[in-house]
């Protein structure tokens, strides 16, 4: 028995688990998305493409567009905030580097619900900021509150790959750029950014994917006017009891994200082989 055959046996439990509890369930979502419900709300299999027509109905289309818009805005803000922070930690962190990275990661381990709820306590109508200012500023229940919550929730996924890319880069390259009389902006655009573009792409995908499917931020910080596709899906399973429509929404979401996932997985695979 060769080493490879011996090791191949180790694949079996994981392969079975992922096929039976991840791949097959996705297939079931697809099957049910073409189903319907009987009078009691039970799910029946069948061929009802109407579920998909409903997804693109003018009533629901704005929700899909809003989800993508919110997620893109989240990505943009995460890049704007995350790049300088990752840059500072990677280039100037010195012996505090690991501590600073740990500090970036730490809040991620505060429960997402509690973190979101903390913003209500901070910025709510009865919150600390309005109390301290004696003001009555409406922060919560606006689209920006939802985007802010998403940024706060997923920023770590942007900073980590950016940090990894910047940390890998030789700082001498930046110095060389400046020695050649490049302005800071030119050095950034022509040297630093191209060298860290993999990190930018990874962070973009890693933030976009969870943000577009999120329903917590919109429910807690927004309100029905800012509902995203995640809220719509959640409602189909827990309020409307229209599982086939919920499954169709989930399938459309997954299909839309598929391109992003493939892009990310390909670059991750390329990176793995490059090392």
């Amino acid at each position: 028995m060769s080493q490879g055959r011996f090791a191949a046996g180790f694949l079996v439990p994981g392969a079975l688990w992922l096929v039976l509890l991840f791949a097959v369930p996705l297939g079931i979502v697809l099957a049910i998305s073409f189903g319907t419900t009987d009078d009691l709300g039970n799910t029946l299999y069948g061929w009802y493409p109407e579920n998909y027509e409903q997804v693109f109905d003018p009533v629901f289309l704005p929700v899909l567009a809003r989800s993508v818009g919110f997620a893109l805005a989240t990505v943009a803000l995460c890049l704007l905030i995350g790049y300088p922070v990752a840059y500072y930690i990677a280039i100037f962190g010195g012996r505090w580097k690991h501590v600073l990275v740990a500090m970036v990661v730490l809040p991620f381990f505060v429960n997402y619900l509690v973190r979101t709820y903390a913003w209500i306590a901070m910025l709510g109508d009865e919150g600390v900021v309005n109390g301290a200012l004696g003001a009555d500023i409406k922060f919560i229940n606006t689209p920006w509150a939802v985007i802010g919550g998403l940024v706060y929730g997923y920023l770590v996924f942007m900073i980590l790959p950016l940090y990894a890319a910047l940390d890998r880069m030789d700082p001498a390259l930046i110095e060389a750029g400046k020695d050649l009389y490049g302005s800071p902006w030119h050095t950034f655009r022509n040297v630093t950014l191209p060298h860290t573009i993999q990190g930018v792409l990874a962070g973009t995908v890693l933030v976009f994917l969870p943000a577009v499917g999120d329903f917590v931020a919109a429910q807690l910080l927004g309100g029905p006017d800012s509902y995203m596709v995640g809220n719509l899906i959640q409602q189909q399973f827990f309020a409307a009891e229209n599982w086939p429509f919920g499954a169709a929404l989930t399938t459309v979401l997954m299909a839309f994200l598929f391109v992003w996932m493939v892009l990310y997985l390909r670059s991750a695979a390329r990176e793995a082989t490059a090392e």
Partner: protein
Amino acid sequence: MKPPKDFDRPRFLKAFTALFFVFLFAPIVLVVLFSFNSSKSLQNFDGFSLRWYEQFFGSESLRDSLAASVQIALVTMVVATIIGTLLAYGLVRSRTRWSGGLNVLMLVPLVTPEIVAGVSALLVFTQVGLQLSLTTIILGHITFSISYVTVVVRARLAALGLDVEEAAMDLGATRLDTFRLITLPAVWPAILASGLLVFALSFDDFVMSFFTTGESPQPLPVRIWSAIRFGVTPTINAIGTFMLAVSVLTIGLAIALPRLLGRRESGVGVLFGREAA
């Protein structure tokens, strides 16, 4: 040669990063602080008290939820770590015609939005007639956890190289002995660290739990969700602070682990190194 001036003194960057950390931690400090508030107010701190913790631990149903969360996280940790480690070993040391596809299948859960994973888990469990309970939550958690373990352990295995294992086998060790006595101990820090990471992720998970939970007991995050929707109460601050403490201890342990085991590598590197990105 001296580097140019503005490279030397990144004042703007420093201020920006400092401000970033203030924003990052402000809400969390607030939650922790007000979990010890003696009054119900979320605006004024009226003195230290443990009354919200008494309310948390005094409630039998919340205690049941805490026990459920711990039980889910422990079982998930053990099963996902075993399966994930075996998968990592298989992916690094074998070349079957399934390996490429399996590698992709292993990575997809990491980039699948939680709501998609939650919906698929709910549908598969109801289709096979499985009653929603702690068991279904655990099955769901293991599914998204395996990949984390595999990615972290695989990076260590790849770094280990083949020569040590080949040396052991040249000296007469069987394949199983080599795996047990050489490979496993060498990647032990990565296995334990990823296991602790899985514990923290499972303990904190809301979305998968929300879609797969039964009536009772429900894990803590699901309880927090119901509570928040009824309004803001200081007990949530106490639960949140407690969960924060559990997560920080778990992750702190994961980071300190390689040192505790007498290794040179850093736990931050093992968990969040470039291999994991």
